[in-house]
């Protein structure tokens, strides 16, 4: 077990190195520069060139990459061109927001999707199954940002139940009020994300339950005289959870992608919104840092999936 995990972690090192090179080169390959938009009209081309040179943007790529890596190991991701602040601080503030929103969404998604998947699988072909499948297909077909805009319009503006921007109300005072206000701001994007992100889990789980239902070991369990509810609890559910478990690690990164939509529509100050802004301002240091972070999270997500899999399925463990 530990050997399996250690081996997986060792493989991650070259993965991360290759990832960092690709990320760095892609960021550099973007057209434009970080200064054109931010200097006043009287400054000439020479001044931009000067800024580029001072910041080392004319050096060969491997030298720039090397500088970047050396700084990286000192915990220094450079300064944002846009905010004139250390990148670590900018990302740090927003990462917390995104983390809470993602966590809230993912917990809510599983809470909704797991019972639906099992119920649909258990009553395959009956009315509840048809209804659940119809629901998941509908949610799958509508683009997510359309849902977000609709949701914000109906529940935010027309009904006025939820706040439409930001992550916390500026008037909230005291710890509890702040936490309450943060939670209140997360509710609408979280619920929408959960209600419209169930399709994968429900469909996978449903088909797994349908498969497991007719499998030989379930027949054995019935022959043993296990009550039907216990069969679902101990035999079918655990075996059907395998692909869902494999999914859990990846769903972290999937949520970050979703965060780009959610946070842009809700003006929610998290990493997704930061990412979109940084791209439009060519804020190289922030972009590379964020893409690297997303990439590393992705790699850790797969690691997490592998670990969960080896816990759930004894056959996967490497001796």
């Amino acid at each position, binding site marked *: 077990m530990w050997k399996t995990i250690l081996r997986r972690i060792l493989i991650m090192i070259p993965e991360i190195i290759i990832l960092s090179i690709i990320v760095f080169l892609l960021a550099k390959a973007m057209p434009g520069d970080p200064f054109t938009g931010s200097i006043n009209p009287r400054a000439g081309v020479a001044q931009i060139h000067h800024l580029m040179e001072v910041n080392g943007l004319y050096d060969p790529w491997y030298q720039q990459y090397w500088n970047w890596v050396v700084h990286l190991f000192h915990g220094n991701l450079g300064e944002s061109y846009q905010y004139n602040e250390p990148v670590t601080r900018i990302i740090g503030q927003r990462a917390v927001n995104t983390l809470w929103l993602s966590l809230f969404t993912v917990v809510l998604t599983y809470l909704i999707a797991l019972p639906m998947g099992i119920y649909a699988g258990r009553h395959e072909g009956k009315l509840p199954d048809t209804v659940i499948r119809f629901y998941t297909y509908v949610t799958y077909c509508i683009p997510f940002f359309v849902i977000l805009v609709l949701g914000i319009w109906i529940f935010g503006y027309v009904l006025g139940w939820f706040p439409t921007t930001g992550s916390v109300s500026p008037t909230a005072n005291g710890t509890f009020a702040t936490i309450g206000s943060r939670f209140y701001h997360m509710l609408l994007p979280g619920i929408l994300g959960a209600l419209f992100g169930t399709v994968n889990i429900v469909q996978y789980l449903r088909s797994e339950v349908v498969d497991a239902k007719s499998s*030989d070991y379930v027949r*054995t369990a019935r022959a043993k005289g296990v009550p039907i509810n216990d069969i679902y609890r101990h035999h079918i559910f655990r075996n059907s959870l395998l692909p869902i478990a494999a999914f859990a690690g990846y769903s972290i990164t999937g949520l970050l992608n979703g965060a780009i939509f959610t946070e842009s529509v809700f003006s929610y100050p998290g990493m997704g919104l930061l990412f979109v802004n940084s791209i439009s301002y060519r804020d190289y240091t922030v972009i590379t840092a964020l893409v690297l972070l997303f990439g590393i999270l992705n790699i850790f997500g797969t690691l997490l999936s592998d670990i969960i899999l080896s816990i759930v399925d004894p056959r996967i463990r490497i001796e």
Partner: protein
Amino acid sequence: MSLIEINNLKVHYPIRSGFFNRVTDSVKAVDGISFNIEKGQTYGLVGESGSGKSTTGKSVVGLEKVTSGSILYNGVDITSEKNRKKLNYNRDVQMIFQDSLSSLNPRKRIEDIIAEPLRNFEHLSKNEEKMRVLRLLDIVGLSVDALYQYPHQFSGGQRQRIGIARAVATNPKLIVADEPVSALDLSVQAQVLNFMKKIQREFGITYLFISHDLGVVRHMCNNIAIMNKGRLVEVGSRDDIYNHPLHIYTKRLLAAIPQIDVDHREEHREKRLQIEKIYQEQSSKYYDQNGLAYPLVKVSSMHSVALPPQEAKKYSEKEVEV
């Protein structure tokens, strides 16, 4: 009284088709069979694949929804789930399956697999339960290490023995063995079969042995029933079936057993061809206009055959004379 009495058992599967998914027809997997199972005996249920023998076995265990007919266990009809629950029926009737790997949950340890029937029906302490599981493992000749291993870590024969240990865990009275050795090679087959005989002697278990392997059935069973197209065609003792088969289907089935006697190879071949010829000529006589077997007729106290009406009359008259 018989341990199990099966009366006119029918299991039909509906075929749905059309736009509204209506039931348009049905597959008659088992179409009206009756027989009794006496305590302590071994019964063989033989037939080609698709003849409904597995469905019969599953119905006896209660895994199959019965269309009509009844299965009486000590006089109580167990085709209804309520009665099965009341009786703790599956404590007394267990099943062994053909595919030992897929019929064991791959994500459960052997300890849990064997202990699960105990957990259903008996409330034992952790320690007692462990002792029982260890004793069962000992009976089937597996070491203590097996407790914490998973099904995929065993060989086919070992896995089948785990399946048997699981089946005998609750001290059942009847075990339905659905082709228990068909997936094993011959040396392991003998090992598992002898082992089943051993536990039968020790615990007085009744077997319903489902197989298409006539050699195995001859080795195991005192009473044999031959099935064809969801109906019984011949029921009798081992001697009746193997030495005095009356139904054309039984004869044909017996002729299909390969002989290892090489010297008389040609004779065997001729005999087989002859029976096949008779079958081609007479098969219409032995089956009704729908291609199904006729009802069983008693030819002696133990031996019943599905004979066509005109021949059946002969036997019933004879019986009257006697």
